[in-house]
């Protein structure tokens, strides 16, 4: 079932076009990736999908209902974890529930139920600066999930982590996404991460940014670490690299 749909989105900043005619859709239970070079307009597109940025053209639909320019409908985890430094992890994570009008007690109860699955047990009363990068990221993910659980947008959720933590987080993310049945659209410029996590990949190229290609990753889930070194994985990787190689966005390199 198609739950999120974006139609011909175009956005410009100061009269220069950043993304042009971008369309995409998300089916229930899918993990989909938006892959593209830095500065191509991925975060901009997320701003539009989440309703905090009004596009010049195009429309966004959530379960058939138009939500263009309407904030508060879709969960959105931004590029930085944005945990509020002056709130404890519990206060941070339950913030979306409180903003939605829940009482403190109810919000803490609802949020507390997920602390174990998100590997945050014992962190309730800690402040963000007392947590490791991976823990902060999981806390930010939990906050995102608690806001709206049916669909979440993740802007480079693992990009600031070291390689080892990143890998552990990816594996954990796949299992929790499966367990909770989340539908997620995430941004990355890491090709390996895109292939490892996704059911489907949208590759963005060009200037202005457009969706150049859509690739289905057919490999079975749950995926094991071995998948990342399989021939199948490398075949996908080659395909994506070929698409990116022809990207006019990089014309300055002279490729």
């Amino acid at each position: 079932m198609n739950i999120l749909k974006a139609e011909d989105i175009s956005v410009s900043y100061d009269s220069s076009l950043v993304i042009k005619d971008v369309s995409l859709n998300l089916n229930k239970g899918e993990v989909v990736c938006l892959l593209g070079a830095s500065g191509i307009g991925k975060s901009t597109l997320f701003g539009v999908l989440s309703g905090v940025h009004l596009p010049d053209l195009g429309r966004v639909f959530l379960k058939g209902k138009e939500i263009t320019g309407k904030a508060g409908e879709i969960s959105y985890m931004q590029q930085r974890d944005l945990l509020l430094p002056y709130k404890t992890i519990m206060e941070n994570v339950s913030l979306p529930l409180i903003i939605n009008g829940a009482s403190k007690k109810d919000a803490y109860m609802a949020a507390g139920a997920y602390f174990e699955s998100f590997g945050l047990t014992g962190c309730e009363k800690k402040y963000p600066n007392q947590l490791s990068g991976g823990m902060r990221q999981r806390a930010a993910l939990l906050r995102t999930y608690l806001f709206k659980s049916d669909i979440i947008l993740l802007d480079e959720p693992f990009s600031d982590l070291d390689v080892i933590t990143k890998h552990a987080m990816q594996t954990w993310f796949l299992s929790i996404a499966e367990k909770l049945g989340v539908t997620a659209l995430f941004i990355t410029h890491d090709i390996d991460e895109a292939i490892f996590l996704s059911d489907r990949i949208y590759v963005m190229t060009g200037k202005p940014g457009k969706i150049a290609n859509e690739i289905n990753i057919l490999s079975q889930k749950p995926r094991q670490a071995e998948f990342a070194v399989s021939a199948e994985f490398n075949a996908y990787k080659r395909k994506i690299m070929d698409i990116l190689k022809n990207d006019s966005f990089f014309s300055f390199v002279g490729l």
Partner: protein
Amino acid sequence: MKKRLKSITDKAYPAIAGVLIIIIWHVISAAGGVREYLLPSPMRVLFAFVETLPELMQHAGTTLFEAFVGLTFGIMLAFIMAVIMDRADFFYRAFYPVLVVSQTIPAIAVAPLLVLWLGYGVAPKIALVVLVCFFPIAIGMLDGFKSIDRDAVVLLRAMGATSGQVFYHIKLPSCLGGFFAGLKISVSYAVVGAVIAEWLGGNAGLGVYMTRVRKSYAYDKMFAVIIFISIISLLLIKAVAILEKYSMPWKDK
């Protein structure tokens, strides 16, 4: 361990400097270079301090009352000004420079005017305290408001937060640091402001007491009041520091 050692030396140096100043002071007055009644020896000041302590405490009550009432109004005024200037860019541009310039007007110069307008009761004292202490707090809070994380605001807006909720969850906690930085300055301003206003008349308060001992040439008592006033200011600054630590538990963790 190292940290603890450092905090000991941090406190030791100023203590040594303080003792040194008192020794020099003692030597000068013992050598008889300055007339005894103009610069009383540290010992005489200490005796005067102990002797007049009950009187000082009594007058301190009045002065502290004025300082606290003034400070309370000052905080409220600062809060309102900071919120308005943060919300309306026009007000910020129009009034921020005016406020900064207004701070070059010395409090002592305004005090006689306030007495003229408000009489000899507590009103002019409180008014002066409000005038001297609202500015550092307003500036501190405004800086806090201006330093908020824009992305965090976008995040809350994406969660469907109202502007009131954005204020409560982001702006208010972000301005606490600036608020306390301003408050630390303002508490000592408040005491000094009240004392200065009392110089010009009234029937109780440390400033009133100061003018009395000055007129009777009791300079040892004069020194005792001055020291008493700085002790009060120091204690208040310490109290604010404790309050700050308590209100912002996420710091230094």
